[in-house]
């Protein structure tokens, strides 16, 4: 790649525009914390320049800089609409600097809330997967039991797990246990259904191939049927993960004492929309990071697929 292709990008011009924009006089009465925005974008730009030097593939670099370009574009519009133009109601729409400032101020609280939310998700999710996958293998393998179980799981899986929340609150001692229970249910049915359909759809010739190797039942189930069903198991797991976040944050808005959903709900109740936006952005980042890690795991475990 030539240096022009590496560094002469719209993204980098947007960065300069964004910085120059900060030189305009502020239009808002409340401290806009412009320096926090500047430090943030300078940090991002340093990353962009490092990666522009390091990344070898043109497509990979373009994708990254395009995404950052959108981020800069958004920040330009946001800055214009709030700090520099004051087109929007400042009580409802904080400046980007205020949001970054609040994020830094609240970082300890935010980390505690992330830990709480992610802890609940992991517990409910892993517990559900640990029960649903082996159960799905056995039910799917026992053909007759399996077809009955398919219908039952279709019925029970059709109930939106959020409606269990009030009953869960009555049934279980702590909010945490309710949340884990609801996420367990939200994950359990799709993973069970995915596993069973995976097992039922294993290429028969693969099973024959294992049979003629004289594998025992255990090997057949865990070294042949399980990996063969893995693509469909992951479909169920993906579904469960998507629903889990919606559920957890909804549940936290109803009855929690901490967690990301609680953070957003609490501050929006008090009209603190700066923190509300901080909460929204943090939830977005957490979901993206978890999905990213989950995708990495999936790609690794399914690396044998074309």
């Amino acid at each position, binding site marked *: 790649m030539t240096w022009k292709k590496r560094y002469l990008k719209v993204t980098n011009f947007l960065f300069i525009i964004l910085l120059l924009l900060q030189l305009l006089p502020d239009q808002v009465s409340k401290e806009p914390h412009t320096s926090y925005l500047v430090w943030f974008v300078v940090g991002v730009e340093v990353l962009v320049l490092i990666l522009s030097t390091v990344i070898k593939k043109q497509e990979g670099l373009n994708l990254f800089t395009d995404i950052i370009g959108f981020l800069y574009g958004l920040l330009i519009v946001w800055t214009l609409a709030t700090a520099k133009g004051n087109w929007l109601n400042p009580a409802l729409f904080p400046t980007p600097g205020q949001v970054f400032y609040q994020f830094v101020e609240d970082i300890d609280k935010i980390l505690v809330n992330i830990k709480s939310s992610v802890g609940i998700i992991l517990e409910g999710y892993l517990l559900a997967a640990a029960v649903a996958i082996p159960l799905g293998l056995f039910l799917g393998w026992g053909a007759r039991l399996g077809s009955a179980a398919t219908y039952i799981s279709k019925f029970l899986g059709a109930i939106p797990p959020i409606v269990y929340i009030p009953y869960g609150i009555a049934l279980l001692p702590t909010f945490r246990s309710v949340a884990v229970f609801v996420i367990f249910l939200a994950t359990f049915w799709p993973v069970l259904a995915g596993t069973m359909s995976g097992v039922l759809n294993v290429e028969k010739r693969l099973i024959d191939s294992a049979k003629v190797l004289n*594998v025992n039942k255990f090997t057949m189930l865990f*070294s042949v049927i399980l990996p063969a069903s893995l693509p469909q198991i992951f479909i169920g797991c993906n579904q469960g993960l998507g629903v889990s976040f919606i559920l957890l944050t909804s549940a936290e808005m109803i009855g929690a004492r901490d967690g990301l959903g609680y953070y957003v709900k609490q501050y929006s109740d008090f009209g603190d929309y700066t923190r509300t936006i901080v909460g929204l952005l943090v939830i977005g980042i957490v979901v993206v990071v978890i999905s990213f890690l989950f995708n990495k795991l999936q790609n690794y475990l399914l690396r044998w697929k074309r």
Partner: protein
Amino acid sequence: MGKIDIRHLTADYVEKNKSFTALSDVSFSVETGEFVSVIGSSGCGKSTLLSILEGIKPVTSGEILIDGEPIHGTGSERGVVFQHYSLFPWMTARKNVAFGIKQVKKDLSKKERLELADQFLDKVGLEDFKNKYPSQLSGGMQQRVAIARALAMDTDILLMDEPFGAIDAKNRTILQELLLKLWEGDGTQEKKTVVFVTHDIDESILLSDKIVMMTANPGRVAKEIPVPFERPRNRAELVQTKEYGLFRNELMSLFYSDIAGKIGGDEVVL
């Protein structure tokens, strides 16, 4: 008594609520160390016969004896190569071979199994592809891995169900010669007993000691024909001899009399 005795095998199956006879009173024997090809047009039951030998399909009546003992289901004295899906797609070539070895040689350590797998992959010419997944290998290479696994498992009997049926002509030739070389060995080891299903007449002549010709409706043995050519065989020399041409013609006329009879006789020009 042969290594494998197939006695009065009859197999009726129900498919789409219609019962049909896939095999009718099939009997023949395979001697120890003999390479037997089962040949016939599609629908003659040759693959069904092999599935029964493998132990994955049931029989209606009759029995199969191996070393004089009737078989029930699959057995560790039989290794199998299918036309498709012999390999597990989530295992690399060497893991596939090592997995096969693990099922028969349980006392070997993981390291020993992988070393043994490597040896056999070397033998089939896949030194550089050991860590590839089946999806990254061509059809011919996949069959090489399947053959390496079957050989590494060191079973007395090798059952092969049209193993080269889906391979292009050039690679098929190469694979046939590889199989021939591996089976004939260097003369020090005992040869494996092979039952090889194919619809390729040249393939069956090149490889086998005996050809079992089957016909359809219902599937039965039409004729057992010993192959009169010396070993080791060289394809290029063999196909040029007059005897080869005559023998091949004889087989062809048997093979196509069955097909001609099935689709209406005289109108068919072959």
